[in-house]
């Protein structure tokens, strides 16, 4: 059961800081003349003890991985090792981004080693660590592809990006941000790319195919070599969405499968914390020949000196500095803790866990064989309702209603970090809801800090700040 504030004065919620205090402060005796300053600010004036209780209480009303299983398919919520925080919290990690490279050799060495680790893991020729999130990595990768086609004087001609229907929403949005038209590819009956449809869609206007492998159904795209041939023969590039790389660590490398560009999601594959929505990091890797288009700067080593270099035909920058440094540092720490054996074990246990969980739940689970995740069907029950009822069992529900290829989809990814005991508890939660009656499901959740939340009204009449609440 989740903690809940039960203060009588506030109708069951933890008051906003602004409800505890709101103090208008008008600066006086400022160094600046009045015409360059504002009249004042009105903000909560809260003592340190009160502040600490506020955020402590809010944390207790929040579910994290340390609270229990969090099987959000394609979002990969795995255990975040605590020692990486200690490393990131070191004073020596706090350096200004405009330091001369000579004064930041430690940081640059970490960048360089991580570029190298990721190149090896992805089977890529070079890696940039600049994109601050997976979606930013996608945009970066597509901009690299665009630069490549422009370099070949095919920039105007290749204006389409192919994206399978089951792909992540970011694929569509990133390609569109880069100015491309989207061509959606249907899946075949077994949930994978339909080769005929692909052959038909591909052509002179194809800039790239963006592919997730294993795909969002947890299925390996067995025809990957043929897919690569089709796309490459048409002059397009093959883009690898790294969201599901956790399933393949050490088993197969995007580079070996024919992918030209890929991104990594470091929190999904390398256990950096997601922090309630970020920061993440979305490094991209490219095959030989595409290095020159990477963002600026790249970290190189020259003898034993690390330097910053602008690639010859760089696309420029996708982040004001060098990306989310602390997140990259934690990624480095995690990879060098695991090493080869740990990385291979990660995919082994991720796949074992997904298959075991799929076996243990009393719901239809179409397609297969699964790697790191599977998509079950809630059947007659609305998947979103199903999820709410799962909350009462002390677990986080899976991703719901997506991909649409499965009715009332429950996209489930337990990750390698769950124990057999934990998987069984999770299966029990699935099975309890599958046997619950409609009324019970509609009344859920009851054990959470908030009851079922009305999202429609929130969107119809948006209240986005304390100022708007008091309007």
């Amino acid at each position, binding site marked *: 059961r989740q903690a809940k504030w039960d203060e009588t004065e506030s*109708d069951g919620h933890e008051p906003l800081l*602004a409800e505890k205090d709101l103090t208008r402060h008008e600066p006086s005796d400022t160094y*600046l003349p009045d015409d360059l300053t*504002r009249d004042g600010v009105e903000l909560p*004036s809260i003592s340190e003890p009160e502040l*600490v209780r506020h*955020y*402590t209480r809010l*944390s*207790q009303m*929040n579910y994290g*991985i340390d609270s229990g299983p*969090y099987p959000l398919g394609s*979002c990969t919520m795995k255990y975040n*090792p605590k020692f990486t925080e200690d490393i990131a919290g070191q004073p*020596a990690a*706090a350096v*200004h981004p*405009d330091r001369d490279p000579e*004064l930041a050799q430690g940081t640059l060495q970490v960048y360089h080693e991580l570029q190298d680790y990721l190149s*090896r893991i992805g089977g890529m020729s070079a890696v940039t660590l600049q994109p*601050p*999130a997976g979606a*930013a990595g996608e945009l970066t990768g597509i*901009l690299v592809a665009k630069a490549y086609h422009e370099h070949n004087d095919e920039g105007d001609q290749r204006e389409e990006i192919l994206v399978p229907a089951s792909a*992540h*929403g*970011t694929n569509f*949005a990133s390609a*569109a941000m*880069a*100015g*491309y038209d989207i061509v959606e590819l249907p899946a075949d009956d077994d949930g994978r790319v339909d080769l005929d449809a692909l052959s038909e869609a591909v052509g002179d206007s194809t800039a790239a195919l963006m592919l997730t492998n294993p795909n969002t159904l947890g299925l*390996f795209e067995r025809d990957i070599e043929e897919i690569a041939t089709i796309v490459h023969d048409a002059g397009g590039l093959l883009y690898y969405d790294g969201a599901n790389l956790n399933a393949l660590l050490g088993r*197969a490398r995007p580079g*070996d499968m024919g992918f030209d560009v890929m991104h990594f999601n470091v929190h999904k594959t390398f256990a950096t*914390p*997601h*922090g*309630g929505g*970020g920061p993440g990091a979305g490094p991209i890797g490219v095959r030989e020949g595409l290095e020159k288009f990477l963002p600026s700067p790249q970290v190189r080593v020259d003898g034993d000196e690390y330097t910053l270099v602008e690639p010859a035909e760089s*696309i420029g920058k*996708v*982040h004001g*500095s060098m990306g*989310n440094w602390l997140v990259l540092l934690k990624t480095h720490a995690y990879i060098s*803790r695991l090493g080869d054996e740990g*990385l291979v*074990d990660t995919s082994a246990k991720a796949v074992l866990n997904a298959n075991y969980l799929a076996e243990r739940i009393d719901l239809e689970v179409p397609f297969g064989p699964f790697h790191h995740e599977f998509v079950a069907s809630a059947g007659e029950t609305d998947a979103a309702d199903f999820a709410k009822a799962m*909350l009462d069992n002390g677990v986080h529900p899976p991703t719901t209603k997506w991909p649409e290829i499965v009715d009332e989809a429950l996209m489930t990814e337990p990750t*390698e970090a769950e124990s057999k005991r934990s998987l069984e508890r999770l299966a029990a939660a699935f099975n309890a809801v599958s046997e619950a009656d409609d009324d019970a499901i509609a009344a859920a959740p009851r054990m959470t800090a*908030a009851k*079922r*939340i*009305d*999202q429609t009204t929130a*969107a119809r009449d948006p209240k*986005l700040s304390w*100022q*708007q609440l008091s309007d």
Partner: protein
Amino acid sequence: MNQTHPTRETDLSFDESDAAQAESGSPFTPHDAEDVTEMLAAIGADDVEELFDVPEPVRYDGSFGIEGRSERAVRRRLDRTLDANADVVEFLGRGHYSHYVPSVVDSLSLRSEFITSYTQYQPEVSQGFLQVLFEFQSLVTELTGMDVANCSMYDAATALGEAATLADRVRAADGSTILVPDYLRAERRAVLENYADGPGLEIREFPTANGMVDPDALESALGEDVLLVYVENPTTDGVIEEHLDEIGSILEDRETLFCLGSDLLALSLLQNPADVGADVVVGNAGVLGLPNVYGMGIGLFACREEFLRQVPGRLVGASEDADGDRTYTLTLQTREQHIRRERATSNICSNQAWVALRTAIHAAYLGPEGLTALADRCTRLPARLAAELDAIPGVSAPANDAYHFREFTAEIDGDAEAVVSELADRGFAVHRRGDDAIQVCVTETNEEHAAELLETVREVMA
């Protein structure tokens, strides 16, 4: 000594403990051998390898040549690596600033319910973080005077990029020009170029004078094709802009957005963007909450109500639950990529939520008096330091006849590159600005070294 007890263990070496401690497999998989056997039996497989449906030609053998290490060994190795970051006192700024982050920020933001949570797709178990983000939005709303703020952009540069594409979506202006001042940092401009690339926007510079906007020059640069004008206050040169009202007037009746770049601390003291007619405010919110960590931070994005449904990124709104209690939820998700796909307002998914939490805690710790007092100090310190530098023969500071916030440029008689390099050798990092100027940033976190810096500059210039 003659011993009856063995004293030499021939197969022991003093440095093998790390290897001895490195687990076989991952230390973060909880399975013992018995578990694996039972699970495989339930699945009906003999071996985990069977479960991989990967064709032979693309199979990989798992050798990356990356050595696994004990937790202690990893920490020791990275400690040593980071020690190679030279021990210099930084007087660096230009958009990235260091303010003292109180201990409560780490203590609270590292609570695992916060840092190990995901985006709040299930609001019923995510009320804590949702309220934090709602309070962050409220803070930004107050400090910018805007109606709407989102709860996290990657950084100031990408927030500017998002503002440009917002302008493209909401403005009917014929053209596609984004007008930026000539003082815009190259890195920010480079990012903007990439955001402009997709929608086909053109970036054009307008000239400034004395480090700030020359209203006449701006007016001359304007045309019907301009979607957005970007101005900073303070600028990354540290200059406080004195023509905001005039800029607002110039843009008032045009189909051109007025986009102001700033940071959360400066906003607590400087002119309220809403009062000068700004339409969008972008910039750096992470000046509160994080020290300088190689440019990792959080971008600011706030705008007027009319653009609400074109805002990029996450928004948290208040709602009610089945008991009628106030609750919070992600809202207006139909703008976002996971619903709207290629018609989304942005591709943003993971962003900088945890930094928003830290920023909110830091701002609440300071409170309105603390924020304003610190901001006021940020106007006094550079004035004092500039005056002291100006007294050194061969240095003229500040280069701009203006008020400054945290930092300023100084002209140098001689080779700026050599001066900067010599200062670095003596333990101080400052910016080089071209061949004959440096830039110096001073806040409460390095002011105690200001006297030493002055002494060192004096020596170097002598």
